[in-house]
């Protein structure tokens, strides 16, 4: 990959990677640092990474940097049964007349997902990745990706249902 191609990668993919990491971490600064680190690693291997594989390389690299970062912070979201993820105190006394933004509720629900479920569903929805592509990024089998997506959707759906947001 040439210098010019590398710079094109910055223009083409950095926003998407940033959105993915930012949504996972809920922190702009940390997300920016992680994306920057991913590009630094790419630059170090710029001669060995082919241009047509670079998007996957960047997502994979950023994802694993993020996982390392989360582990270091010891803020990994504990695995929960989908049934455990319901309304917290914030929405526990939710009044049906209140006009709570669906996106806000969905973000809240997303933040409660286990890290792996959050990542696969973000890659699926944000990037439209296939099960195989998600598996490559997250080092999972396709069947595992499918299960995680199913569990994530179920959790989010139950959260929405519990919030009684939708008619």
């Amino acid at each position, binding site marked *: 990959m040439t210098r010019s191609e590398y710079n094109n990668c910055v223009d083409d993919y950095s926003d998407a990677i940033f959105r993915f990491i930012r949504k996972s971490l809920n922190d702009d600064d940390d997300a920016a640092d992680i*994306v920057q680190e991913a590009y630094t690693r790419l630059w170090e291997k710029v001669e060995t990474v082919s241009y047509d594989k670079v998007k996957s390389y960047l997502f994979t690299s950023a994802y694993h940097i993020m996982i390392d970062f989360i582990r270091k912070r010891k803020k990994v979201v504990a695995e929960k049964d989908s049934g455990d993820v319901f309304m917290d105190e914030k929405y526990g006394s939710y009044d049906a007349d209140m006009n709570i933004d669906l996106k806000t509720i969905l973000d809240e629900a997303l933040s409660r997902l286990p890290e792996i479920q959050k990542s696969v569903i973000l890659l699926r*929805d944000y990037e439209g990745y296939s099960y195989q592509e998600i598996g490559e990024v997250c080092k999972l089998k396709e069947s595992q990706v499918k299960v995680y997506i199913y569990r994530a959707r179920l959790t989010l759906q139950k959260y929405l249902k519990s919030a009684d947001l939708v008619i």
Partner: protein
Amino acid sequence: MINKENYIEYIVDYFDGNLSDDLQNKLLAFLDENPECKEEFDNYSAALEETFVEEIEAPASLKATLKNIPEAQEEKLVAYMENDLSAEERNVIETELVENSEMRRSLYLFEKTKLEPEMDVVFPKKAAVKRYFIPPMVRRTMVAVTSAAAILLLFWNIVGTGKTYQSDQNLVSHMSVAPSFIDQLPVFADINEDEEPDTTKTNSTNTVIETPGHQGTEVMQSIPLIAYAGELSAPQGNAESGISDVRTEYLEIYSYKEYKLRKDDTNNEKPKNKLGTFSDWTNWAMQTVSGEKSLADNPANQLSASDVSNFGIQTLSRITGADIPLAVK
């Protein structure tokens, strides 16, 4: 008659349901008497059961029950939403959706879980991660300039606090070097450059200060932290500053000068801008061209090395936005 030559045929007929009750009883009795043949019977039975399970058609009532199990329905809906189903399976689901309002509601909620990327969120450090080609010549120049600046800073840090600067033109503030020490310097009281101090009228810690560029005297108010004895005779170094006595001595001198300069400022005697104004430079240029003045007469020709360095540092600070810890007043 069932024997070891023909018992296989009876076993097949048994499982096909073609044996009468009498023959079935005779076969089972034969198998009890011949365990090796019973093993054959069991193997055939097991193989047949597997086939049977595969081909079994669930009754309609059971199918309806399975369809109503929430987990199964949710899994199908997620698969439908994720486009994991074949066309035939999709048709089945869509038919069920028409008939089942609860299922439609469930699918609606699942579709709401699809996340939309926030396209207005962009990576803020694009410029920082991009790589630009810098010609070798430019790179070498940058390295040289950076090195020169570093050397200049180092030189200033070392020499600027030494005995080299004893003239009135080099008034160095060491606030960044030893702020705690400066904070503890004595507070000067009245200045009266025409009178000799009467130290006898003050306590023992009052003293006369004479500096290289100033022969006047000041009377200091004593403070408890620092005890001075004699004029400029190596005051007690501040432990926190971590600097030598010689350096401490000159810190005092320059702090005094700084104080004096502040006093001058208070009296509206602002120091002249040594760099000259734009008008000065214009006049000098015109006079130089006309032969009235030489290059050496430029408005900044009285600048010392420290002035030039100071100007450079201030300019560098302004350009980089960094707080370079050296300031010259």
